[in-house]
């Protein structure tokens, strides 16, 4: 569906193919619904994705989708919120919740990266590359400078990660601002450059490859002092690290920049209407660059948090297989580029990823090796339905119209 102006299938088709005036009532209603649907539409979108995902489960495996979703719910530790869950069950739930929140932390930051660029009218598809460059610098700084004050060490590594991400995305921003190169193309290319830099650095004989394990393509572990403190759960068993608060701070910063600073005003003006921004005296290319750089900083911090918080090392395979930044696109889309929306969408996807990981799913209920594909399926459906939210809104308007009749 490329032309969103077209009414979806089944809508009253305008037989004369007439201009905007004739289509207006429908579009007007869409406009109203889009505003009223600030919360309703994303929730419906998610529910619709889960429903279709459930159908796929039912048809392809014959398993009960509700039981599957319940298992995912518990695997993600969401039952920790239920007060009647007690004893060992509660401990397990707490552990699962910690894992969910660790992933949520990353998703909030990569989601914000995509969302910030969106607000400037840019599609930053290069969160992955920015995440990787951030992780590379975090692992390099984290595994060097042994004996440095832990606070300084952590801040240094995190800031370096942010700056690297900003720089990486900034390249695409500069290209967009100066020669008009489309950011989708340039960020995809930068993703591959980042991946191959990582492969080179951590590959056998690479400059950052492990000193002691000569035949393992992985970095050195970061030193103890560079690890983020764990504030919930056992540090040995991957408890929740304080990067969680960095993500919350990221949400607040995101909101503050966009609604309380001149920078945010300029970014939004350019995003909504670059021609009006230019007329108004706003430097449009500069805002393209800044929006990309800030976007990249969020993704870079995400990479640094993963390294400093729970991965502690970066392997060649991780660099090649990391897809967490792409989930950030779905998070931003479902969260409608608002801080609160990104937070909730990140929690949803964090729970899905944790709940469907092989470790957390009972094979009796659903085959674990299929489960992560279910996550991908739902993720894809969300992106599809968000892109086609016209359909969701149209369904909403149909339901509303039927009621009085």
């Amino acid at each position, binding site marked *: 569906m490329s032309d969103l102006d077209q009414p979806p299938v089944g809508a009253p088709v*305008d*037989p*004369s*193919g*007439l*201009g905007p*005036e*004739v289509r207006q*009532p429908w579009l*007007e*209603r869409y406009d*109203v619904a889009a505003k009223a649907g600030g919360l309703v539409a994303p929730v419906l979108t998610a529910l619709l994705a889960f429903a279709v995902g459930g159908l796929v489960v039912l048809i392809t495996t014959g398993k009960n989708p509700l039981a599957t979703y319940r298992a995912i719910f518990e695997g993600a530790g969401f039952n920790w919120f239920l007060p009647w869950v007690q004893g060992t069950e509660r401990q397990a739930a707490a552990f699962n919740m910690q894992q969910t929140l660790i992933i949520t932390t990353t998703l909030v930051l990569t989601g914000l990266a995509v969302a910030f660029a969106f607000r400037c009218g840019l599609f930053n598809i290069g969160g992955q590359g920015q995440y990787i460059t951030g992780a590379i610098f975090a692992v390099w700084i984290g595994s060097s400078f042994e004996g440095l004050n832990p606070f300084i060490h952590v801040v240094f590594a995190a800031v370096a990660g942010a700056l690297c991400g900003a720089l990486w995305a900034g390249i695409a921003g500069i290209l967009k601002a100066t020669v008009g190169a489309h950011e989708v193309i340039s960020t995809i290319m930068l993703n591959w450059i980042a991946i191959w830099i990582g492969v080179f650095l951590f590959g056998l004989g690479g400059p950052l490859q492990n000193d002691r394990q000569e035949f393992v393509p992985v970095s050195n572990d970061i030193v103890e002092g560079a690890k983020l403190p764990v504030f919930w759960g056992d540090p040995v068993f991957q408890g929740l690290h304080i990067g969680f608060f960095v993500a919350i701070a990221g949400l607040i910063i995101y909101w503050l920049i966009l*609604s*309380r*600073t*001149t*920078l*945010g*005003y*300029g970014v*939004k*003006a350019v995003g*909504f*209407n670059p*021609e*009006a*921004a*230019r*007329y*108004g*005296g*706003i*430097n449009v290319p500069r805002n393209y660059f800044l929006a990309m750089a800030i976007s990249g900083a969020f993704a870079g911090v995400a990479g640094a948090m993963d390294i400093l918080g729970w991965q502690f090392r970066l392997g060649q395979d991780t660099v090649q297989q990391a897809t967490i930044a792409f989930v950030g696109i779905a998070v931003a889309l479902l969260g409608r580029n608002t801080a609160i929306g990104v937070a909730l969408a990140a929690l949803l996807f964090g729970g899905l990823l944790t709940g469907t990981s092989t470790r957390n799913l009972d094979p009796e209920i659903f085959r674990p090796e299929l489960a992560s594909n279910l996550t991908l399926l739902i993720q894809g459906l969300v992106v599809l339905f968000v892109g086609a939210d016209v359909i969701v809104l149209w369904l909403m308007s149909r339901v509303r119209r039927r009621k009085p009749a």
Partner: protein
Amino acid sequence: MTDAAPTVLEMRHITKRFPGTVANDDVSFDLRKGEVHALLGENGAGKSTLMNILYGLYHPDEGEIRIADKQVQLGSPSAAIEAGVGMVHQHFMLIPVMTVAENIVLGDEPRHADVFLDIGEANERVREISDRFGLAVDPKARIEDITVGQQQRVEILKALYRNADILVLDEPTAVLTPQESGELFGIVRGLTEQGKSIIFISHKLNEVTEIADRITVLRRGKMIDTIPAAGATEESLATLMVGREVTLRVDKNPSNPTDTLLEVRDLHVFDDRGIEKVRGISLDIRAGEIVGLAGIDGNGQTELIDAMTGLRRAASGTVTVSGEDVTTASAHGHFEAGLGHIPEDRQRRGLVLEFSIAENFALHDYQRTPDSRFGWLFPARLIERGARLIKEYDVRGGGPHTRAGGLSGGNQQKVVLAREIDRDPQALIAAQPTRGLDVGAIEFVHRRLVEERDEGRAILLVSLELDEVLSLSDRILVIYEGEIVGEFTPDATEEELGVAMTGGGRGEEAA
């Protein structure tokens, strides 16, 4: 027209509701054979809704339609065409690469053996209709090669080819030059002489009094009155349309110009395709005068304004705002130097429609105190100014938090006007400041521009509406193919300006 002419169309007690609004509230309308019946009303008065009902695009909630004394159900445009209704929309529905005849017969083609398009027959039939009604269109010409005025005639032909007896013309002159409008009126008279009946939708009072036999005025979905055009004055119609007394004539004292505030010297500007659109223009606009720039669209006005406001780099020449050379300054630099700019397209350029009214007021100044300090924005101050300007400029339809895109065109323009004037500029460029506005809003904008002139601002008014240029300006310049080809006083006639606008006065003009 005599009252004896039979009634060909009757729309009785039509009511059409949309969520939250009644677009047509018990509207009755009738059309007699061979008359021009004008449908007059401000934007949003319900003219288009009524005509879309007639054309089968909407279904009325209440009321009936009778054509030739028979009640009809117009469920679709094809049913309307079947019933003899033809419509010429403001935006043409033509395929540019196809010929006139191909466009006209499309969907109802003469065929050989029921299969192959008989293009010879098509050309013949189009030529025959064209000659009968004096439309003078070459059936074999391609749409992309003919003028807008001719394209409009193709649309009329399309309806006639389908045997329309009732023709709806939706704001037909909006896209035409004054000369083309004159020709259109000739065609309309020819059509009525041959028994066709015309519904003429417009919000331009002078046209309506010129062409119509009867006039029906709509206001906010209600039918106000149907009156004979004979005896109706522009003032009386405006009062019916707006619902209160409207001054159409701009009352102003003679100008008293002093220092030159806006100066352009030998400016040359190229467009995006590298064509020289401004070819050595020099202007002096002094404090306390309105200089009107008249011209047909596309003669370099846009490029001239862009170069004067920092949105496009001039190839050579200078632009000076109250003594400061701003030729190479950014758009921001121009605003800082004391220039205000009401852009010709308020939706594309003048406003960020997704922003609130208050945010739109801050477009030029958000980086300065009191809007912000050290990059920190103070939304409360934006709201405060928003509330003040909304009151001062009588912006209706919302408060400071309302999205600018939710306002009507006239109120959007008030927002732009308020923003530009409130910055207290030395010089003001107003490009098409009343385009698409209705009478009440036009009156407001005109009054405000004259007030600003009297405050001592230098105002350049660029407009495609000749009567606007004539009534507001203290001096009139005519632009033709990127050059100033004549200077006139406001007592010049439209004909004199029209000749200069089409290059006719070139060379012989003694400036």
